[in-house]
């Protein structure tokens, strides 16, 4: 359950600012969408990484296709779903980056997996959804104190 918030913009790096502003607006304007500062920062980063990947991998040749982001929030969880029209990938098969090898790429999926509690690949009729879930801090506290 929980309320759904969605945004779709063309798959261009120049539109990442709108995605960020949308999320910031949700945090500032929506009652019931009160996140802790740390959660806001983390989710911003995860959204950024997921969108960069849509731009670079899924829609590289079709920047006019929309990247579609859906955020579902309730007291216990935040679910981020990033939809593209590409062939998708298996996040579990992406290796951890090796810092010592001075890798310049390959940090995005690792950041998403480290930040979120789960990262799942969902293949849909018209493309691919990366669904990421995070348990919310207050919910954790409730569990601990209950």
């Amino acid at each position: 359950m929980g309320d759904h918030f969605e945004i779709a913009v063309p798959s261009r790096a120049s539109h990442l600012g709108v995605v960020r502003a949308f999320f910031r607006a949700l945090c500032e304007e929506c009652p019931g969408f009160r996140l802790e500062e740390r959660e806001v920062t983390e989710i911003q980063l995860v959204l950024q990484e997921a969108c960069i990947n849509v731009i670079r991998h899924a829609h590289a040749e079709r920047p006019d296709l929309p990247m579609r982001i859906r955020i579902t929030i309730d007291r216990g969880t935040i679910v981020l779903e990033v939809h593209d029209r590409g062939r998708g990938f298996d996040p579990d098969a992406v290796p951890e980056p090796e810092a010592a090898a001075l890798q310049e790429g390959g940090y995005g999926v690792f950041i998403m997996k480290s930040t979120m509690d789960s990262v799942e690949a969902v293949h849909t009729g018209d493309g691919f959804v990366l669904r990421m879930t995070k348990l919310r801090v207050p919910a954790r506290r409730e569990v601990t104190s209950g």
Partner: protein
Amino acid sequence: MKQRTEADREVAVLHPEGRLAGEGAAALRKEAREVLGSGRHVVLDLAGVKFTDSEGLSALVSLYRTAMENSKAVALCSLPRNLRSLLELTRLHRVFDIYENEALAVSAIRAGSAG
């Protein structure tokens, strides 16, 4: 890249500001390449960085590689909390020499202990 200051003839200090992502990351790459190409070591004062993503990390790693290729040293300093967490998460904090502030970073490079 809002500012570049010279600690001395051997060390340049870069002060990237704002978002170390997208254009900000590209600007840092460019600026760092210029400084390293001119034969100086680099101190990167990151106090003004508000947000870093994987492209920002990538720019930092690239800077480090270019420095090594040029036999120059790189030191980072004044890391905002988020950036420090991100470096720790990706284990890149063990690659870079990181200092609390610019003075410490500059003197470490002068002493030849950084980078």
